[in-house]
């Protein structure tokens, strides 16, 4: 695997009506798989320019406007739905509930190929043009706004570690105001082992729910009256969310012709279910290593695991030990 030599920044893309139900257990921001898929589709458009291709995508959200509402007297949200055209006989169609959201995102794409600075800038502009004809997570991308800060940017990476760090410090300012989506399996593991001290059969789902909801406990220390207890919310800092990160196989891999109605007759086919992990929205200031930001897609056909992976926590460990 070749290390990336440059970053392509697609700043402030405004996306309309992206899918806001990214899995069977959650709603909100689209799954990282939607973005790795988008970047893969973009990469395919540039096979003549890029030989080695892309090495991951960073996802930063600046604005988020889901199409939901809270019915009067309810404590839960519902999706604003569209009325679909009637059927041939004039009867209404079955309503399939969809969730949609408008959002503004910046994408940071790591590029493996080396391009001279001028070529790189040209490529960045071309990529931006192509991007505006594509869709992200099912949503359409609105036309680019005027202004330099909305132009695609090309950032050649430094070779030495120190130079890299400095560059990242400058670069991450471009991502503000916003939050980057990263994966936190370390915090999930930590919570799971805490839960298991009291409840040996606790599972990752229990830990995931525990970390992403509000837990009101009657035995929190009272900061005003030392030694006394009061009601409070047991919570740790950080904006933690459940995110679907990929799929697990439920069936063997079928040859294309074995499955009726498959999308094409040459690609192997598999039934799968969504896999969930713990995500965190972090301030771009937290990023001290490029690997903390990037998402990659991985596939292990033998194990039947197809997933996106982000190495925020691993890179965090190396970054801290690196400083110390």
């Amino acid at each position, binding site marked *: 695997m070749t290390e990336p030599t440059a970053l392509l920044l697609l700043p402030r893309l405004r996306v309309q009506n992206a899918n806001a139900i990214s899995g069977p257990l959650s709603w909100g921001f689209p799954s990282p798989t939607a973005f790795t898929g988008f970047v893969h589709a973009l990469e395919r458009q540039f096979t003549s320019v890029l030989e080695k291709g892309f090495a991951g995508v960073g996802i930063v959200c600046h604005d988020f406007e889901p199409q939901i509402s809270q019915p009067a007297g309810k404590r839960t949200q519902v999706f604003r739905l569209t009325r679909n055209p009637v059927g041939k006989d004039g009867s209404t169609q079955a309503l399939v509930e969809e969730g949609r959201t408008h959002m503004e995102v910046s994408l940071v794409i790591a590029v493996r190929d080396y391009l001279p600075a001028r070529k790189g800038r040209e490529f960045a502009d071309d990529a931006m043009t192509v991007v505006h004809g594509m869709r992200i997570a099912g949503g359409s991308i609105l036309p680019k706004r005027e202004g330099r800060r909305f132009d695609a940017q090309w950032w050649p990476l430094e070779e030495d570690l120190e130079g890299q760090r400095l560059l990242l410090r400058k670069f991450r300012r471009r991502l503000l105001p916003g939050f980057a989506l990263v994966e936190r399996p370390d915090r999930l593991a930590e919570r799971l082992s805490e839960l298991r001290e009291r409840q040996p059969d606790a599972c990752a*789902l229990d830990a995931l729910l525990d970390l992403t909801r509000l837990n009101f406990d009657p035995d929190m220390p009272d900061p005003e009256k030392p030694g006394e207890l009061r009601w409070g919310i047991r919570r740790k800092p950080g904006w933690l969310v459940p995110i679907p990160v990929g799929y697990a196989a439920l069936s063997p891999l079928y040859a294309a012709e074995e499955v009726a109605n498959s999308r094409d007759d040459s690609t192997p086919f598999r039934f799968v279910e969504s896999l969930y992990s713990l995500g965190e929205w972090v301030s771009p200031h937290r990023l001290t290593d490029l690997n903390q930001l990037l998402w990659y897609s991985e596939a292990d056909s033998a194990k039947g695991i*197809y997933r996106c992976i982000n190495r925020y926590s691993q890179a965090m460990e190396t970054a801290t030990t690196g400083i110390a």
Partner: protein
Amino acid sequence: MANSAESPISTALIRQVIKDFLQERLQPKLERVKENEVHERERLLKDHQPARWIANAANRVGQIQQVTHALKYTHPDAKGTSLNAPGNPEADELLVGTHTIDEVTADVVGNAAALDVYKFLKLQVGGKTLLDLAIEGNTALQAAFSNDEEQAKSWMAAFADLSKPKGQPASHKFAKQLYWPMEGNGYHLLAPLFPTSLVHHVVSTIREDRFSEEAKAARKAYREREPYPHGFREYPHLAIQNFGGTKPQNISQLNSERYGENYLLAAVPPLWLSEPVRPPLRTESIFDRLFGRRPRVRDLLRILRDFLARVQDVNNVRIRNTRAELIAHLRDEVLLFAAETQENEPGWTLDEMCRLNVDEQCWLDPERAGQDESFAALCTGVDWRDGICRRFANWLNAQLTSTQTPMGELEAREWQSVMEKEINLMRMELDFYD
């Protein structure tokens, strides 16, 4: 093994369970029949004879399937393979899927009119269901079904197939199929199915947390600030997705039990619900009130205060790290607030209502320097970064020093060194402003 001597599962017992089941189904039907409808009464009695009913059930069992993953949730008109699968055991322990949960509640899809067959197969005898017995080829069950061995075996085989997909594997034009790129070249087509059993587990958990008597009592104690043996849980911004409209049973049995609703946990970015950025006018410093009023800042301060109260007399690496982490989150908020404010039209500090100190003007309206030379000179002249750091430090100190817990001299000194370290990091960030 299933037929060992001490097994409580006997042919007689199975027959009795089946008889009771049929009697229970027959009774309400008979009550609806009018006095004079003799033929109807006879027909019902005949249909509920065990041999006849079981034969009929074995015929109809093909119309339903026991599943854990169903297709119809994707689209009610989608036809194709649904599966009965315990999830992928190869998946990592920290990845949540059907493999994560121990007890899987099975769902049933297919013709809702054949659901009585499912109820029949779920009858319990000696801790096992008739379905379990049919799958293991239990001889007591076989004898209970019929004296005709061939006949009984064929019925059992039909029932045992309940969880097997019918026919050739199939997807559908209304189903989802996505291309996943493989290492090197080529793709796999992935067809996600809805994990109805896993969803059932999650929905039951959330429902319990929201509506159980225990949770209600704890919530009441919280409102009244009374002590209580346990806490309760809230799922903020939970959304409801409906399946099947007014006929949830058309999607699946468990969907019907969930009233056609699925709970979706919120995975929204923090920027959602934050107030629009407006120029901070009519104030001398954003640290006076504006910054501290932000909901996330208030939350973080509360967490930090609670934390400091809890660890008052202890001091170790973990505590120092957590404290630094919490302060770093507040620092993030400062920088985010600044970035949001900088989104305002350059030159907003020229507004006559603007009373902001010079340091913060240079910080929060940097692009004004491009069009205003004297302002540019001002910003390069003063070291506004120091000013910002000092104000942040003063603000944080004031927020954390409550009158009830005055800091001792030692603590105060320790706290000061913590602050200095944190402020240095803040200063480093500000240095990268160009």
